[in-house]
């Protein structure tokens, strides 16, 4: 057996953010179904309960997003390294990673990407997380904040083109976020064992075989 080395991949603020965020977004998705289809879905005691829970979960996500942003942008200052794909990522990395997911994974080959604290995501993760964290989550949160304060912010709503357009944006982006969640949770089980990626997100520590010494991809 090769000896294992451990790397501290997910610092505590990131883990707190991530699980707050996950709890928040799952709550949002579930309550949203009752809010949009109240005559068919009765998961919560009454409509008002679903609304209040949805609003509270939205605030949790917005709050935890702020935590995430402050941590990466101001405390750790490695947001660009972690989240912005490099030129090489785009030219070669994406293809390499796609080939792994679509083909060589099934043949039993190892994942070509080895995470380090400053380069913990493979190029596909980087692109996906970039879209999620810089586009979807902020836009869904902002539209949600507008929707919970319609009277005082009516002029902003009109700027967007009206309440219907705001609702459409919020709804379709939220669907995209939920679709991401399906894929994300599935991919999270794609380690050597189903829990191999999820455990580090909980404990912070990633175990790697010695012979796969982590190296930077860039």
């Amino acid at each position, binding site marked *: 057996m090769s000896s294992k080395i451990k790397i501290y991949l997910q610092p505590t603020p990131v883990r707190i953010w991530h699980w707050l965020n996950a709890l928040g977004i799952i709550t949002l998705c579930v309550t949203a179904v009752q*809010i*949009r*289809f*109240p*005559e068919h879905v009765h998961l919560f005691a*009454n*409509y*008002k309960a679903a*609304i*209040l829970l949805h*609003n509270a979960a939205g605030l949790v996500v917005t709050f935890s997003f702020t935590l995430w942003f402050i941590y990466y942008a101001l405390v750790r200052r490695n947001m660009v390294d972690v989240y912005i794909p490099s030129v090489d990522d785009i030219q070669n990395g994406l293809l390499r990673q796609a080939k792994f*997911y679509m083909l060589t*994974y*099934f*043949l*039993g080959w*190892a994942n070509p990407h080895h995470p380090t604290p400053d380069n913990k995501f493979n190029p596909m993760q980087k692109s996906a997380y970039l879209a999620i964290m810089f586009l979807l989550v902020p836009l869904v949160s902002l539209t949600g904040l507008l929707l*919970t*304060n*319609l*009277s*005082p912010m*009516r*002029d902003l*709503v*009109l700027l967007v*083109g*009206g*309440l*219907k*357009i705001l*609702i*459409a944006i919020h*709804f*379709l982006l939220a*669907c*995209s976020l*939920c*679709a*991401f*969640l*399906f*894929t994300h*949770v*599935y*991919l999270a089980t*794609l380690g*050597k*064992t189903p829990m191999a990626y999820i455990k580090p997100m909980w404990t912070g520590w990633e175990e790697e075989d010695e012979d796969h010494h982590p190296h930077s991809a860039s």
Partner: protein
Amino acid sequence: MITQVFRKTMQIGVLLSLLTLVPTMALAMESSDCKSCHDDTDMVGEELMIEALTFDQTAHAEVGCPACHSSVTEDHPDDGLAPSKASCAECHDGVSEEYVNSIHAENASCNDCHNPHRALGPTAVSGQDMNLQCSTCHENVEMQAKHAEWLPQADLHISTLPCITCHSASDEYVISLYIIKRQSGTPFGGFELASYEELNELSGGKPVQELVDINADGYISLAELRMFNRDSQNKQLRLQGMMTPENVSHDFRTRNDRWDCSFCHASGPEAMQVSYLSLAESDGSFHRVSVEKGAVFDALYGTPDFYMVGASRSSALNYVGMAILAGGMVMPLGHGTLRFLTRKNRKDEEE
């Protein structure tokens, strides 16, 4: 509907027979005589002025002044007698009985909410005006604060719902669309209900209704509605939607389904099919024009600024959303199947 018409006819019938069977001195003077003095501030002063233009628009014009002020004699006003004033219960026994037994009976009389000389049915009163009837006693800001204790976005609800939509009952509710106009001056001034004069100026001589009903057929199609909404921004106009009652019970009982939001938000799309454009008339009443069925479900431009969460969702967007979610399942299902089928290839590694 039929029973209502029947009831009305009966009431008018009873009235007319009453008037002919019980000839009083009042017969000497007719409504038009009264108006010759009381529609003129120079004759009677501000206090006793009865706006004839407004009065003639009400159902009470049909019963006439003497029916309610039966003691007015031919010598009035020189006789020094105080004219009698009919009580509402004489003719509206149904409503009166209901109201007398309500929790609100001790708080206000009919005349506190209604002016008999401008009494209009709920379909001829704007939602905003309905709330003026309450705000004389229930101050608006205070009400917002009180309702905010349990109602999300109380400010929004109080400004876009008649109080009676929650505090009384009706056989039917519709969506009434009102044209509101940005207050001149600041670019971010609030919007207020457009007056007849403002609308008249905007329509440039044509009937006000043709601001929206472009082909003047007395019916507003979805196409006309969209056209109005697309270019109304530059005229600083908006359509504000309100959920208004078609008739009004007077029991003022607070219903649980209003409290838990389900009455309006979980009633399903059927409840939202009927809508009207409601426009100010020169006489202070409101005049309705039918709008194409289901206008509030149009995804974008039918009623761009009206949305009742849960009730007026667009089914077109539902399908797009479903497609997006299905896209998210491609990876777990497709990849997952192949992963299961090729699990042997990874066997050594997983140990």
